[in-house]
Each structure stands twice: as structure tokens, then as C-alpha cells.
């Protein structure tokens, strides 16, 4: 049992890491009242940025490239959703469509239509002494690529920012009641812009993590719905960084189940396991979330005062 369980737990945390980065970014923008359905597009942009930059200058540059690409995608979203106050959902859908198309086009243009497997530097797991020796959970939590440790730090930082700083309070105020926030001297548009851009950088980092610490190459459409799953994770985690981190682990486990069943020689069709995270998203959205806890102004298009 232990032989199958340890790799399963490791795979759970490994697949949860990019999901959690994206979901934390989305938490920030949703807390400011903006639902970025274009997160999927932000992630694929991050994937592509990471591949290009890592191919040119190594892992560190890859992380930077991924974040900047995610930031650029968020800039497009913000220009329409905040700048013009277009419908957030349709704008996000368009961003996803466009980013998937653009990265696919540029990938073919830059690396050939055959899409030859790219060799880029990747991040190897790094076991933390002592902590990784803890039975069961040690290897899963503390023998991962450095991105996972950066994630632990990010969860803490986002929590501290949202609940222990004035700016974080401003973000939450704008998400609940932008007019009241404005009356209190906060500029809601500026706060939403900042939250969207921060969310974009984290979404890009999520794509970079996917490429550099998990897959090791780029493929057209490799984000495979992770952006939408991350949005479900935010709801399941009740818009709280710690909850979001835990919810991401649940989805990581759903994805990692296929490895577990492969290793036990199951005869069930593998499409069943591939579809599992998406089905789980539906179940979770139906059962595990309540609308009451969502930021009150989430998705609202018009601010009464401008």
C-alpha cells in the first residue's frame, strides 16, 4: 500500500502546485470584485512565456518570462473589463480563446509545425533535510521542486496581505461594496487594476510552474482547463488563501488518481480518470460552495460612481 500511496501523494502536491498559484491569483482579483474567466488564457500565456524565456536563459528567466506573459494577458483583460467596463465573462472567454490561439500560432511559427519536443531546463525536486523524512507526508510536502515551497510562501503572503494590511482591506472593500470604498477614499478602478495584474502575474507563474516543474515542454492547449478548475478552487476555498490551498490539493489528488490506478493495474477506461477533475469541479461547485460567501460585487460591470 505504501508503495503506491507515497508516489500518489507526491503527484497530488505536484499537480496541485500550479493550480494553487492560479487560484491564489484569481482569489486576489475576485476579492476585488473582478472574475477573470480568462485565467485559462493567462495560464497558457505563462506556459508559453516560460518556454521561450527558459530556452533562452534558464529556469529563473523562465519563471520571469512566464509571469510577464501572464501579466500581459491580464493587461488585455483589464483594458476591456476595467478600462471599458465590458462584460467580465465574455471578455474573459475571448481572452482565453485568443491566448490559446496566439500561443499555438507562435509556437508553430517558432519551433516548426511538427512541434518537435523542446528541450528546456527544468526544476528538479529538492528534498528539505529532516522535514522530508516525516513518514507519508514528508516526501509529498517537502521533496518537491522549489516552486512548491514558493507556493507555501505565497499562500502566507496573500493571507497576510488580504487580512493584515490596509491595502488588502481596500481590496476586500472594493469587492464587497465599491461605492462605499470610494466614499472612504479608495479608488476602486485602481484597486481592481492592481488586483487583476497581480492575479495575472500569479497565473503566469502557474503556467511557468506547469512547464518548468511538471511537464518540461510546451504543447498547444496544455493548460487543459486548469484556469477554469482554478476558478472552482477559489469558490471551494471560500475566497480565503488557506482554503484555496487546501482545495487545490483536492483537485491535485483527483488528477493524480490516474497514476495510482495505473500502478495498481486497473482495467477501467483511462478516459474516466482524465475526466475526473472536471466532474469533480461540477460536484464541488454544486455541493461545496455557497453563494453567500462570494464577494458581493463579484462580476459587477458598472460602478455607480465614476
Amino acid at each position, binding site marked *: 500500500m505504501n508503495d503506491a500511496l507515497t508516489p500518489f501523494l507526491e503527484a497530488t502536491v505536484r499537480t496541485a502546485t500550479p493550480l494553487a498559484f492560479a487560484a491564489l491569483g484569481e482569489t486576489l482579483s475576485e476579492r476585488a470584485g473582478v472574475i477573470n474567466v480568462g485565467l485559462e488564457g493567462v495560464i497558457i500565456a505563462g506556459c508559453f512565456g516560460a518556454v521561450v524565456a527558459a530556452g533562452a536563459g534558464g529556469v529563473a528567466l523562465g519563471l520571469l518570462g512566464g509571469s510577464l506573459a501572464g501579466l500581459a494577458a491580464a493587461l488585455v483583460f483589464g483594458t*476591456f473589463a476595467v478600462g471599458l467596463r465590458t462584460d467580465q465573462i*465574455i471578455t474573459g472567454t475571448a481572452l482565453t480563446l*485568443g491566448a*490559446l490561439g496566439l500561443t*499555438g500560432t507562435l509556437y508553430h*511559427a517558432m519551433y516548426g509545425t511538427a512541434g518537435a519536443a523542446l528541450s528546456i531546463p527544468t526544476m528538479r525536486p529538492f528534498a528539505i533535510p529532516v522535514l522530508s523524512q516525516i513518514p507519508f507526508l514528508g516526501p509529498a510536502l517537502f521533496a518537491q521542486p522549489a516552486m512548491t515551497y514558493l507556493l507555501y510562501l505565497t499562500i502566507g503572503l496573500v493571507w497576510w496581505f488580504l487580512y493584515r494590511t490596509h491595502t488588502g482591506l481596500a481590496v476586500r472593500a472594493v469587492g464587497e461594496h465599491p461605492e462605499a470604498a470610494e466614499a472612504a477614499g479608495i479608488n476602486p478602478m485602481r484597486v481592481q487594476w492592481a488586483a487583476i495584474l497581480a492575479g495575472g502575474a500569479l497565473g503566469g507563474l502557474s503556467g511557468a510552474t506547469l512547464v518548468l516543474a511538471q511537464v518540461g515542454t510546451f504543447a498547444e492547449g496544455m493548460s487543459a482547463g486548469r484556469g477554469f478548475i482554478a476558478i472552482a478552487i477559489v469558490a471551494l476555498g471560500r475566497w480565503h488563501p488557506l482554503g484555496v490551498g487546501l482545495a487545490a490539493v483536492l483537485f491535485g489528488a483527483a488528477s493524480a488518481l490516474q497514476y495510482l490506478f495505473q500502478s495498481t493495474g486497473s482495467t477501467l*477506461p483511462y478516459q474516466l480518470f482524465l475526466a475526473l477533475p472536471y466532474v469533480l*469541479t461540477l460536484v464541488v461547485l454544486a455541493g461545496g460552495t455557497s453563494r453567500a460567501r462570494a464577494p458581493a460585487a463579484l462580476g459587477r460591470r458598472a460602478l*455607480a460612481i465614476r
Partner: protein
Amino acid sequence: MNPPALRRPFSRVRSYGIVLVVVGTIVLVLALVLAAGGFDVSTAFGALLCGAGGSSYAIFSATLVRAVPLIFTGLAVAVAFQGGILNIGAEGQLLAGAAAAAATALAVGESLGSGAIWLGAMAAALAGAAWAAVPALLRRRFGVLEVISTIMMNFVALYGVGYLVRGPLQEPTHIYPQSASIPEATRLPWLLPGTRLHAGFVLALVAVAIAWYVLRFTAAGFRLRVVGANPAAAASAGKIRVESVVTRAFLASGALAGIAGGVEVYGVTYALYENLSPGYGYTAIAVALLAGLQPAYIIVSGVFLGALGAGAASMQREAGVPLALVSVVEAMIILAIVGGRVLLSRRQLPSAEAGS
């Protein structure tokens, strides 16, 4: 969440203005992307135009054949959007319809002959509606955002078809991940000799006419438009049961997308396989928005985006430009429309955007 600007009909002058801005921007950005990708811009644009409308083959066997599923799915999206339902799941509903139609033709096609086509179309509509029923139920019972749930259902449909064509519906030799070819009798007849244009095009036009009539002249259509325009007012002033109107429109939308899949199998592919649709369900969003959600205009926008797809396929053959570029153009169309509408309505109706 339900923008009035999406549904508000526009004056002719403003509509032309929007189209001009959209086309101009898109051609410019397209040229820039092509140049950045290192492609020969003039060769690529030439191939695009030739492939979309340069010959009778291009028009009847490429552009119009692609327009058929786009008109059906575009209608599906428009019916949903009219009621304030953001159904992004036409792709999955199309695949569910295609699977049901293929299964019907393979099961009873030999015994029923062409009668199986009608049975298959009904099966496709039911399957599409069933696929839409999940997000519809989740929205009604639990308030789940249909954008997320419909997209999740798209992935489930894709893996479901992947399972079917490697399992119960796989062709007899069990080599290829696709179903057996459907019987001759269940294939839709050609409309024009020597072209690939099939009777599904007529069915699409009939669907447009029905949708136009229902939305424009029936009580059900009126209720849907009222709910889409202002659900609170519909409930309080109009005594409309908003939730049941929404659910029925959601199911009708799924049924239309399901028929798109059935028609595609009976008229074009003659078999079920995973890559049956090059994203028709996503392109449908651009089709519906470009038509201002009006059924009659969906014929025009469906043919236009069908031409774009046909032209892009030719660009890939002639100039090596990746097909994925089509999605970029569609995204730009959508952004240009929603952005352009806000800008235009701001200029003319300064207060129209307040309070959604």
C-alpha cells in the same frame, strides 16, 4: 453579470460603424501577427481569400459546409444569451449530439434507412439538451456559474467521445480511434451536384426561421427576452417564472448545438471521432455576438466565420500558417464587439451603462 449592451438592438448606422472598426482592426492585427511569425503576409492573405471564396469549390464545399454547424451552434449561443444564459458549452453539446446521432445510425440505420436520419436528429437534440441539463440544473438549484460548468462539460464530452471511439463504438477492426462509417442511407443528400454542400444547410436555414419566429412572435420568445433584459422586472412586473424560462431556454440551446453535431456526422464526417469539431462551439460565441444575437443575421455571421475557417485551412496549406490563428481572429472579433459597443453607447447614451 447580464449586460444590457449585449442584447440592445443597434441602429443600422451604428452597426455598420462597428463592423468597419472590427474588420479594420482585425486585418491590421492579423497582418502584424503573421509578420511577427515570419510568414509571407501577402501570400497568406491571398490564400485566405482564395480558400474562402476564390472558386465555386471554396464557396460551396468549404465555406458553406463549415457554415452549417456554425449557424446551428451560433443559434444555440444566441438563444441562451438572449435569456442571459452564458452557455459556453456548445462544443460539448455538439459532441454529445454527434455521439448520439452516430450511435443511432449505426444501430438502426440499416433497418430504418433514411428514416433513421430523423430519429438520429431527435437523438442528437435530446443528447445536446441532456448535456445542457447538467449546467442548467446546477445553476437553478445551486447558483453555479454556467460559464464554468458548461466548460467542464465540454471536457467531459471530449473524454466521453474518446472513450466511445475506443470502446463501445469503435470500428470493427479495433485499430483506429473512430466509429464505423454510418450506412449510406443515413447520409444527408447533396444539395448541388459536384459539391460537398449537403441538406444540412437547408435544415440550418429552417432552424433560423423557427428561432426567429419563436423569439419574435411567440409568448415564450417574449418571456425569454424579458428575462434576459431584466430578470427582476420579469419576475415582479411580468409575473414570469424566471427560473423555468431560463431552464427551458438552456435546454433548447443545448438541443440546437446537439443537432449541429448530428448534422455534422450525417452530412460531413459519416463517423464519430474525437476531432470531429475544430472548435465550432467556441466559434459560435463570435457568430452569435457578431449577429447581435438576431437569428436572421446569424446566417450572415455563420457564413462569414465559415469563410474564415475555410480561408484559414487554405492559409495552412498554401503558406504554412497554423490553424490556431483563427481563434485569435475570433477573440479579436468578440473583444472588438463588446468594446466597440461600450464606446459607441457611451458617446450616444452617457447614462446607459450605469447600474447593471
